[in-house]
């Protein structure tokens, strides 16, 4: 009985959430339309309809997909590389005081040098090809992931560790079976924040030095005054970011153990 009511409320909640999102997006487009049609009334600010039509053309010509794939591939590669570097460093900082003393100055120093400021040096080192983009995304990812991972290790409840110790856990078991899984939600939260940084960085990098990608689409559209193209790129970025963030939220919840397999 209780599990039944719980399950049906969860389902209602989900429906309400989806309905809320649809309504929210619809409202955004309505306001956009009203602003374009009645307030601004300028060819420099197209309404949602011409932008949508332009998007269909770009999709038909396979242009939009190519730019999206180019940008997302860079984001994913750099993001995964940055996370793969950041997670072990964060775990080490959180676990060992000596590592914290040694590495914390680094993270506290570099995280205030934004990736955008590193574009010039990245292009000089790696050229305008894929390497410079991946470097920049990895750079922008790594420090956020390090900091949240280290914070996660520090936040593992004392009783969780003690309970494992008095069940006979070795140090390695405490780390692998308690500290690590307890830290996963923090790691994912850090990665989620880093993903937002990655979007900022990839557009900036592609604006300045690239042959393709959404940033390049934006730049070319500006050069040729194709205002609809600019809006297509902006909406695409927003939607891609939104979807990626959803995926992270689902993962975080799943790992936090708030849902069981039957829900």
């Amino acid at each position, binding site marked *: 009985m209780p599990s039944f009511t719980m399950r049906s409320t969860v389902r209602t909640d989900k429906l309400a959430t989806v309905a809320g999102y649809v309504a929210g997006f619809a409202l955004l487009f309505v306001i956009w339309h009203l602003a374009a049609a009645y307030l601004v009334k300028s060819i420099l600010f197209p309404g949602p309809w011409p932008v949508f039509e332009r998007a269909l053309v770009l999709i038909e010509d396979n242009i939009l997909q190519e730019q999206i794939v180019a940008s997302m591939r860079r984001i994913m590669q750099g993001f995964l590389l940055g996370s793969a570097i950041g997670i072990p460093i964060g775990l080490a900082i959180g676990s060992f005081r000596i590592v914290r003393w040694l590495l914390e100055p680094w993270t506290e120093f570099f995280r205030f040098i934004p990736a955008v400021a590193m574009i010039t040096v990245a292009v000089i080192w790696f050229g305008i090809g894929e390497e410079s983009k991946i470097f920049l995304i990895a750079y922008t990812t790594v420090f956020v992931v390090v900091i949240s991972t280290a914070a996660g290790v520090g936040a593992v409840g004392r009783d*969780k560790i003690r309970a494992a*110790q*008095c*069940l*006979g856990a*070795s140090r390695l*078991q405490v780390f692998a*079976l308690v500290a690590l*899984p307890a830290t996963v939600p923090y790691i994912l939260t850090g990665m989620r924040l880093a993903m937002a940084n990655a979007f900022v960085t990839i557009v900036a990098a592609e604006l300045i030095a690239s042959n393709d990608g959404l940033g390049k689409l934006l730049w070319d559209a500006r050069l040729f005054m194709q205002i609809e193209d600019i809006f297509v790129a902006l909406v695409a970025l927003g939607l891609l970011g939104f979807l990626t963030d959803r995926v992270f939220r689902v993962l975080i919840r799943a790992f936090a153990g*708030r849902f069981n397999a039957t829900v």
Partner: protein
Amino acid sequence: MALVSLEGVGKTYHGRTGAWEAVRDFSLDLADGEFFCLLGTSGCGKTTVLNMVAGFEQPTAGRILLDGVPVERPGADRGVVFQGHDSLYDWLTALDNIGFGLRLRGLGRRDRRAKAEHYLNMVGLTGQGAKHPSELSGGMKQRIQIARALANDPRMLLMDEPFGALDAMTRAVLQGELSRIWAETRKTVLFITHDIEEAVALGTRVGVMKRGPGGTLKAVIPVDLPFPRERTSDAFMATFREVHALIHDEIHGAH
């Protein structure tokens, strides 16, 4: 020979505000199979005593022996049930929480499951094994903690006010269940509480602590009442009054 011996145990903390003597000259022998309730007001050092027996903290004076061997670190021979339920693993199901100690020992999935099921049933949670801690009530979480400690088959159980955060009804139910489980398993129990009725209802002996700082054992009262204990009986009331009189001085002025 006693299972556990505390010999003149003391614990002094050194902090920024100076030294704080939490426990002073605490001596006690626990016999195999007894249920010892350590009763005291808040801040008397009773949890510190438990933490030292568990091996989480080291005494600064005296020594603690388990089977004649000094306790130096936490170990699988002493199962601990914590006051809060933060000690459960949120990412594991109830059943996997119970089987955690068995997993540490490398027991196979099937054996682990069977044993965990046995203890899940023992604590009265049959059919709830697939749930995560976040889906269980406070009382159920404490049952899981007890099952987790028991599944590991320790020499003794250390319980730190395990029912302190529960409502009165749930607490009474769980006290009854714990008594039944103890009668079934005959594990040695060191049970920390500040609740006189709880101590008299559960313990074969009740130790009353002096209030802190420098908390120490004031008196030990044997409770020779049959289980299950009838809380409204005259004999129960008499023991309650005896313990109450002892702790009365400690309560007043303890704030």
